[in-house]
């Protein structure tokens, strides 16, 4: 009985894994199929039917041009780059002074950041909108950039956690050589933090690339569309041309897929560190 029981358990294990993998992949694969079909082919075949011509990229061209996806990618890249650079700097600076100096108010400061994490961004959106408006930032790229910078507290945590593992004797020996605190931060701490920086870049990068809410509310101007909002615009006018919408979905997914395959190892670490608060 023993071997049979063992192989039955093993069979069930692999069956469930295959089913899980299929459940994760099928919804994406059918969209990929549809994106390569012609309009007539799409109308006459089921979603599980493979496309006749695997190299029919006309839907992609149409989605890319009509949806002004290039503009979306440009805006997304600008916002991601500035936000990430800023968040890395401000986050690591904040973490540096909080981890290395015990000063009056440091506990208060830490508490203030902690408390802020408890306030979910969606709840205060209505009031934040008024603030962005009164700063004259509505419909500018600075609105999401400032918000991605301002709400980033997880980065501070990741940096602080990592700073604990960097020995303080390193700082002290630099001070014996007459280095200023700025030099210590810039020349010693920041380079040593690079694994944590990669983590922050990945977690923040994924969040910003995928965010829909913020650009949708704060940058409705069409010249400022990002990937998410560009994709959302397909909803109305292309209701009957699903093959074009599917191509647009794939255009938005491909960068994520490429990043995932090339950064897999870092991404797993990044999420494990970034999400356990």
């Amino acid at each position, binding site marked *: 009985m023993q071997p049979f029981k063992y192989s039955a358990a093993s069979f069930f*294990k692999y069956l469930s894994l295959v089913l899980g993998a299929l459940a*994760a992949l099928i919804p994406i694969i059918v969209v990929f199929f549809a994106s390569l079909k012609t309009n007539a082919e799409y109308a006459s075949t089921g979603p599980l039917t493979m496309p006749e011509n695997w190299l029919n990229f006309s839907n992609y061209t149409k989605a890319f041009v009509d949806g002004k996806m290039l503009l979306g990618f440009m805006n997304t890249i600008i916002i991601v780059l500035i936000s990430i650079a800023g968040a890395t700097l401000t986050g690591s600076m904040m973490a540096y002074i909080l981890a290395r100096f015990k*000063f009056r108010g440091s506990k208060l400061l830490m508490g203030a*950041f902690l408390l802020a994490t408890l306030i979910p961004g969606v709840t205060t959106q209505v*009031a934040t909108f008024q603030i962005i408006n009164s700063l004259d930032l509505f419909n500018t790229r600075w609105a999401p950039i400032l918000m991605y910078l301002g709400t980033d507290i997880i980065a501070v945590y990741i940096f602080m956690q990592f700073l604990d593992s960097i020995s303080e004797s390193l700082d002290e020996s630099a*001070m014996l050589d007459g280095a200023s605190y700025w030099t210590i931060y810039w020349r010693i701490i920041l380079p040593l933090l690079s694994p944590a920086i990669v983590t922050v870049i990945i977690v923040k990068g994924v969040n910003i690339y995928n965010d829909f809410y913020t650009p949708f509310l704060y940058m409705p101007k069409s010249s400022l569309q990002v990937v998410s909002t560009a994709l959302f615009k397909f909803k109305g006018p292309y209701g009957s041309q699903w093959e074009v919408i599917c191509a647009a979905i794939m255009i938005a997914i491909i960068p994520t897929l490429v990043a995932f395959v090339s950064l897999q190892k870092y991404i797993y670490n990044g999420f*494990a560190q970034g999400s356990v608060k």
Partner: protein
Amino acid sequence: MERLSNLSYKNQRLLIILLFSLVPVALLLTFSYLPVFKMFQYSFTSWDGFSKKMEYVGFDNYKTIFTRPEYFTVFKVSLYYFFATFVQMGLALYFATILSFNVRLKNWFKGILFFPTLLNGVAIGFIFLFFFKPEGTLNTLLDLVGLGAWQQKWLLNPHLINISLAFASVWRYMGMNFIIFLGAISSIGSDIYEASEIDGANRWHQFRHIIIPSIKRILQLNLILAVSGAIGVFEIPYVMTGGSNGSGTFVIQTVDVAFKYSKLGLASAMAVVLLGIVILVTILQRVLIKEEK
């Protein structure tokens, strides 16, 4: 930076603390604390967001939320997402457990199960619109496996719409729970498993008596985050149905009330209620986890 190093370390220290905290604190105050303060203020007014004058109406907005059924029924929608979280965490825990042990193609399965979590929310909304269409993927699949009789209009049937949307949400977030559980399980030392195997424990015993107790805190944290998550649902129903056909969530309603109907005061009161629930849940979580220690 020569000038800086001429200062004494005591003065440098002060300067660097001030300089380094200036921008983060300014951002924190402007985008975290000021909005909360303003939100409370607006919630007692009938402000439309444009006019110069704000009229204070006391607790009227709150009364509206708690007495008018159309504002309160959205919480029922949250229940679907709340229950879906249990399914999501159960699946995540199951896959994380079996993928912590020897499995062929382990990294492939890990990657495939995790990948959906990285996708763009709007793309996921569209993918599932396509999935649930009357001639879409799900109905075709059902037909293929001989369950053609189960075909449904998944997003048009008011009894099924929220279940369908919650399913999309499970698909989206399962990978996130999965990777967190996987990380937590991998921190358990292999010697514990070995010792238990010598004592004759099978996989189920190991799961029940080693894995579950070791990741209990993360499980609890996730369970309680599920409540605020269920109330904060926005993207999937907004992209897929726009909140129609009884699928509107609290956040969709808040955004509509504020930006479509220009009732900023009322929307702020709704946000205060939402914030209140989240804070309550957080306190509960702290209390529960402290008791555990």
